[in-house]
């Protein structure tokens, strides 16, 4: 009996527990303040039935994809250069620290003035949120490549191009996948915040609009979807990707 309890993964109990708490707390309040989970489910069915949920989700995911892709490209360039060249690293690291200290959503009013309300202003906020932590992680990846491996490859006859393809790239791949994971989650947080400040669609807009019109069902539905997307990407995509490349790294 004890053995069975030991083997049981208690992680699976956390979500039912949260739902139970929700039901208990919600039972103390009228549903226009804190609705029950099943009332939010009913709200979800309405949003799905008229196609508006898909529309908002699509808008958010397109912004996320744009900002994340742009941030990945720039971070790859910055991180690799900073990892390889000490002078550039010295130059860029105060800027990195400065930008990482500013909450990305603080840029939203400015990007909205420059780019106007819409796709690009939100993409820019996401970009600012994701690019710096990603660049630092990639830089650490390049720096972590051990001098000994580089030397070994040279004595085995690798040319400079082969060094990049066969040593630098595989050695920094675990850091690269870690950077993707960090960047995606930073981008997602910033996206929701930016949409709440100034957007006419998207999941973040759904939450803030729900708050303004007093529809708590809509607010909670938005929060659940935000969490769900983040969790799906984290556990189904990035954790697996990282695990695949990290079997050898921990040792």
């Amino acid at each position, binding site marked *: 009996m004890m053995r069975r309890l030991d083997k049981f993964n208690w992680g699976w109990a956390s979500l039912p527990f949260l739902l139970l708490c929700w039901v208990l707390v919600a039972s103390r309040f009228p549903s226009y303040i804190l609705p029950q989970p099943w009332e939010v489910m009913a709200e979800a069915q309405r949003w799905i039935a008229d196609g508006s949920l898909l529309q908002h989700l699509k808008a958010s995911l397109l912004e996320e994809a744009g900002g994340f892709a742009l941030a990945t490209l720039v971070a790859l360039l910055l991180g690799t250069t900073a990892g390889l060249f000490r002078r550039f690293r010295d130059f860029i690291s105060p800027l990195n620290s400065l930008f990482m200290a500013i909450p990305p959503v603080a840029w939203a009013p400015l990007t909205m003035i420059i780019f106007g309300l819409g796709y690009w202003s939100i993409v820019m906020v996401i970009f600012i949120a994701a690019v710096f932590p990603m660049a630092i992680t990639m830089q650490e990846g390049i720096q972590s490549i*051990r001098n*000994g491996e580089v*030397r*070994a490859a040279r004595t*085995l006859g690798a*040319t400079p191009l082969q060094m990049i393809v066969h040593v630098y790239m595989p050695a920094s791949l675990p850091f690269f996948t870690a950077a993707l994971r960090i960047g995606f989650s930073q981008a997602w947080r910033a996206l929701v915040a930016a949409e709440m400040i100034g957007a006419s669609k998207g999941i973040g807009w759904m939450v803030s609009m729900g708050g303004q019109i007093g529809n708590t069902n809509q607010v909670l539905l938005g929060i659940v979807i935000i969490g769900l997307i983040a969790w799906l990407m984290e556990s189904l995509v990035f954790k697996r990707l990282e695990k695949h490349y990290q*079997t*050898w790294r921990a*040792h």
Partner: protein
Amino acid sequence: MTNHNGLTMANSQPVQRVAATLAIDSINFSYPNGHEVFRAFSLEAKPGEFIVLLGPSGCGKTTLLNLLSGFQKPASGTITINGAPVRPEMPELGYVFQSPQLFPWLNVLENVRFGLRMQNRLSAKEQTEKALHYLALVGLDQAADKLPYQLSGGMQQRVSLARALALEPALLLMDEPFAALDAITRNNLNEETLRLWSELGQTVVFITHDIDEAIFLADRVVVLEIAPGGIHSELAIDILRPRSNLGTRKLPRFIEYRTALMEKIADVVHANLSVL
């Protein structure tokens, strides 16, 4: 033709008998901070010779191997392999490092095949055959598809040795390769090193601070001085081959050599202390 495991070697792989001459001709070397390491240092290794460089820590052993492999250049003087100045990527040169320095993302076979692949020698199939051949020589053909972290330190160093040997270098530089291993594993690998060397016949320059290891392996032990300097003295090891851990290490002559080398090392250290 069979190797020690009783496996039949492919006919396409004749036993290799290439060996290089290494010539170090009065090199001088100092670090940029002014610390002088070598002054008019000369040494020659004849083809097929097994030379062990022995010295206490601080004698510049690792600096010397960096110079020998061309990773660093002497301020003056020349280091040549068969007459050509050394470069790290020259095919005559094989290098076994203090730590195995395997590529952790490649399995054992791919690690051994790495050099052949980079240099585009042979077809893919022949590269794999050759890599397996050398893995078998170090007794690890069964571990071909393991990742390096799944192996013990001694096994990793064997893979590292196979990786260097797969390129069939005429000169093998070994930089305290077994220093981090336990005494039992070190003795076993000493024996294996000699067996491989007698089969392949390349020139070996082996660096160590372990006196017993030096005697067991060497044709000639070269005792280094503490920097700045060069060679304190040389000792030819006149013990019959093949040598074995059980037979060789208990010979009266082995013990005489050990005493002689201990005295030399004491002299090196003492000379250095009197300078301080």
